[in-house]
């Protein structure tokens, strides 16, 4: 099957290309030019870019099918132009056994939508006590190991887990939040939480945990990806760690470069997120850190929550927001605010996360997997429950006017979504 995408503005952040032209696809890969395509897509006036790669999207299976199903969320992914996604292990049961990982991959593959990269649990049942069989989980398809949002309190176990992962070259992806300092907290510890009477999580809950983790990386040389930074202090620590040459990378969730604790307004439970939205200063430091490259990647941190989980007082509401379908428009909004080129903007959701994930996708080079998003960067989009394919309608951006609509999504050369 030969596919020609013609006349589009081809933006390939990995090579720096940004020019009107054609993209050729043959046998599921980007190819050199050919003369007789089996199918042609006219992308005139649209952007043709590598499909987006999301380093954190919860699909809610197994265990939380009432919140979302693999099918609903995979439809949401491709509607958002996301062609590869990594899913955290906090399912029920958690992804701590090869059989579970294998089944998830098969079920995802059968849906023929986006590529799913499971992240295995670092410890059995995410309980922070016993290491999982990382070797067998990796064989089953896990690309990294993580505790998802479950804190690993025991630093002895953390140290050993990093040593073990480093022995075999596995990547460890970790959130950083000191569980004691975050205990009972539901919002950033600052004047907004004080006003609203919400128990706070201080920013130093993040920097203290990050300090511990970086010291352990220094000792073990484990490859560590730090997930969902939320504070200005953590951005500066990551800057220094990278300068020092530690094998670390990091990402930020798409909400954190746009929102801050003030957006909680009158107790909007859609702003109940983990980590919490912090101050305006933190938000600006995160947006800038992502622009200057200290933060490698932008992810949706897609977490569909059912209505019952959000129709609760703020502190009792379940944390998380839906995000797969907002990744592109919110990335574009961030890039525009920082005056970045389209290529620079898209790099944070294409080639940069691809590097962290260790995949060959995320680029339009000849021979790369033909995972492609074709989108209209100016198309207006009013965020509403009806407009979202995800089963989760929970987002602080409800009612926002955003720009950027995906028209066609291609995975391995096959059209998996058309608007």
């Amino acid at each position: 099957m030969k596919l020609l995408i013609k006349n589009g503005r081809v933006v390939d952040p990995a090579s720096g290309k940004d020019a009107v032209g054609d993209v050729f696809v043959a046998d599921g890969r980007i190819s050199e030019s050919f003369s007789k395509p089996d199918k042609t897509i006219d992308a005139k006036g649209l952007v043709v870019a590598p499909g987006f790669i999301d380093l954190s999207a919860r699909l809610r299976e197994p265990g939380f099918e009432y919140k979302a199903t693999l099918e609903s969320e995979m439809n949401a992914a491709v509607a958002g132009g996301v062609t590869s996604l990594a899913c955290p292990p906090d399912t029920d049961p958690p992804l701590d056994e090869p059989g579970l990982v294998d089944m998830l991959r098969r079920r995802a593959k059968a849906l023929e939508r986006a590529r799913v990269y499971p992240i295995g649990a670092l410890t059995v049942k995410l309980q922070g006590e016993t290491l999982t069989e990382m070797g067998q989980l990796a064989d089953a398809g896990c690309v990294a190991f993580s505790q998802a949002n479950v804190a690993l309190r025991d630093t002895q176990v953390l140290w050993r887990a990093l040593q073990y992962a480093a022995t075999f070259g596995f990547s460890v992806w970790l959130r950083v939040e000191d569980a004691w300092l975050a205990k009972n907290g539901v919002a950033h510890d600052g004047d907004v939480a004080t006003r609203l009477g919400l128990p706070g999580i201080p920013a130093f809950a993040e920097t203290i945990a990050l300090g511990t983790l970086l010291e352990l990386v220094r000792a073990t040389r484990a490859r560590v990806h730090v997930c969902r930074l939320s504070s200005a202090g953590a951005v500066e620590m990551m800057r220094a760690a990278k300068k020092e040459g530690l094998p670390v990378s990091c990402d930020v969730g798409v909400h954190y470069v746009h929102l801050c604790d003030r957006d909680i307004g009158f107790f909007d439970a859609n702003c109940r997120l983990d980590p919490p939205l912090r101050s305006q200063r933190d938000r600006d430091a995160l947006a800038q850190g992502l622009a200057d490259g200290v933060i490698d990647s932008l992810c949706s941190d897609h977490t569909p929550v059912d209505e019952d989980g959000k129709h609760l007082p703020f502190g009792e509401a379940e944390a998380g927001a839906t995000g797969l379908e907002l990744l592109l428009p919110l990335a574009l909004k961030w890039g525009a605010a920082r005056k970045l080129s389209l290529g620079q903007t898209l790099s944070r959701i294409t080639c940069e996360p691809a590097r962290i994930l260790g995949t060959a996708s995320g680029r339009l080079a000849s021979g790369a997997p033909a995972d492609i998003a074709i989108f209209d960067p100016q198309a207006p989009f009013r965020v509403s429950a009806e407009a979202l394919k995800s089963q989760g309608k929970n987002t602080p951006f409800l009612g926002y006017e955003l720009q950027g609509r995906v028209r066609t999504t291609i995975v391995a050369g096959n059209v998996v979504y058309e608007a």
Partner: protein
Amino acid sequence: MQRDPQLNANGELQHLLSIEGLPREILLQILDTAESFAGVTEREVKKVPLLRGKSVFNLFFEPSTRTRTTFEIAAKRLSADVINLNIAVSSATKGESLLDTVANLSAMQADIFVVRHGSSGAPFLIARHVKPHEHVVNAGDGRHAHPTQGLLDLFTIRHYKKDFSKLAVAIVGDVLHSRVARSLIHGLTTLGAPEVRVIGPQTLMPSGVEALGVRVFHDMKAGLKDADVVVMLRLQNERMRGPLLPSAQEYFMHYGLTIDKLALARKDAIVMHPGPMNRGVEIDSSVADGPHSVILPQVTFGIAVRMAVMSIVAGN
């Protein structure tokens, strides 16, 4: 940012959820209305027919004696039917959700929901889901707000001091967990009190509290100096000994209000407490029962203030 959910499209009080954000005019309207009701409570026949035929549901998800009782008395003096629900020992323990509980009561023709809940913001959630003719009055939510207590505190201060514009008010104790303190601070700053102080150890001060417009003191003597009004906050039993404080005795030593410490305030200072008091922990009996104390009048004023709030929201 959405419109303040406690005001209707005409800017009138639809619900009373928080003192924060309420215009000065509405605060004064409530205080003036309460003034007019203060007389009713002294009459032999203590009833006015303003809420005749209306139903007031007292929805208490947290235990309360004083607040619930004064709301009940206030509603009855307005001739409303009052239904008390102690949810802490009924539906919630059966797993019914907050909104389901409210929807069921709404089906029983409620007009006013008086809500106390342990989670900050719970009355806002309820207010977003009630019918247009129904009103929500916050009777205390988590650490967030206790607006009728704040209003009765303001009423008490105005009663004794007349004018807010020259007052120094000192609020002493567990500000971190206190919805009473937050509501009073917002009320005082809105009505123009020039100096609002909060006094307590760092462990009981919420971060960024200065942003509410207060000065923070850790030394009680410095904080009480020349104060016109001293408001003592209740210290919950479970917080007297643990990571926040070493013991009730040591707390009393530093922050308990004694006659000696009170002598640093102005001679005509009044002493307030939202109750229930821990004698010998935050306040010495000689002060609680002494000439500066207006703690019992506060309770009486609370009835008039709650009558005012319910009659105003029901009329809008």
